[in-house]
């Protein structure tokens, strides 16, 4: 699950980057970049949850 989250994060980065090329108007460009960041945050949350689950199994 941690690795899945870490794989989602670059997708968000490329989404943000593509906003620069796709849009020239500031509003849609900003919105698209924020969407990319949201995807990255989602990936981070999944990675953190994966870490928590792994830790829960290995507690000593």
């Amino acid at each position, binding site marked *: 699950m*941690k690795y899945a989250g*870490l*794989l989602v*994060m*670059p*997708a*968000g*980065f*490329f989404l*943000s*980057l593509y906003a*620069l*090329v796709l849009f020239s108007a*500031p509003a849609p*460009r*900003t919105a698209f*970049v*924020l969407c*990319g*960041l949201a*995807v*990255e*945050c989602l*990936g*981070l949350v999944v990675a*953190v949850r994966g*870490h*928590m689950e792994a*830790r*829960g199994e*290995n*507690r*000593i």
Partner: protein
Amino acid sequence: MNPTLPTAPILSEAAFALCLALLLVAPLAIAGVALINTGLGRCRSAAQAMLGNLVLLAVAVISFALIGATWVGSTGAAGHSFQFAGRPWEWLGAGPLLLGSLGAAGPQSQLALLFEMLAVALAAFIPWGSGADRLRLSAGCAIAALLAATVFPLLAHWVWAGGWLSQLGVNFSLGAGFLDGGGAATVHILGGLSALAVVWITGPRKGKFPKEGLSTALPGHNAIYVLFGCLLALVGWLAWNLAGALLWLHAPLGSLPVTAVNTLLSAAGSVTATFAVTRFRFGKPDASLCANGWLAGLVSSSACAGLVTPGESLFVGCVAGILTPLLVELLELALSIDDPSGAITVHAVGGLWGLLAAGIFAPMTGQFVAQLIGIATLLGLILPLVYLLFWLLNRVVAFRVDSDGERIGMDLHELGGGAYPEFVIHRDESYR
């Protein structure tokens, strides 16, 4: 030479002399962080932590000089780029090997290299503090070498040396491009994200998260080191932010006092906010969290001290100071992340907040989106890249010490002697 890239403005003689003097003071920030890292660890690992700080600095600087500096390059100089959507994307520098032509380079390039060498040393320190009490010295050195040779040069080129992030203004009309005068992205966020990767890979200290109940408190062994480190760091940070403003933001000499005031206000606002939050939550102020708050304010100022007004800087510091104790608690209690030095909160989150604040408050049109793109790069590309590199490195050089080493302490296990040989080390109550 890429003809589409502008060259950096030339520093005046006075600015050059001031910048050089500031860079000679900047290592005090490194000394401050080293003291904080050591003080927040346990007494039976103190000598290993402090020796690690020295050795990591050496390894990072050598690795950067041998390999990394080649990839950083400098603004207007030759670099590797590709065309996409009709625009150039410069992604890697192409400097001379082994600092070959450093003596013949312009004085500004020499100053930039000195700044980058200090920056890479500080970036390498940050994950070392988070791996305290279980990260092996050899692994710390390998991490420092890897960061200095690969990820740091990549990021430094993108942000400081004419790379695609710094050219967002020219290519996409986004303000002045991604701005990071004091190294919030290249040093602190890189270091903080590396700390997260190290903590994920090494796991928590033994006994930190018992099978039943809440996490065990393993307080730092020397609050005086930590708090004195904060004061030392302030001096270094002032120098760092001013030198960065001259070199990377091309600020005029007349604007430097405001940058210094902003740095001080950000740290002051942050520590005051952390003091109030911990006083309110725990009934008494917490020394180590206040130290973390102070540092978080300084880190935030690295991103925005040269771009905002004093009032805005105070606000940025206050927000960083409120976030710090809450996030340290969240990471430990809710997310099972054992970060003894608080580097993930202080350096990564503090830096991200500073970059965002710079985008919000900077007067240039489009600067907010440029800062967002920088943040997206750090979170979406650099964090997975660092984790992948460290994961591979861990297969070659095991990060975590064996359980026996952790039981007797890193000093005895790795160095054969403790930092405080005349003191009685108490039995560890956290082992059950």
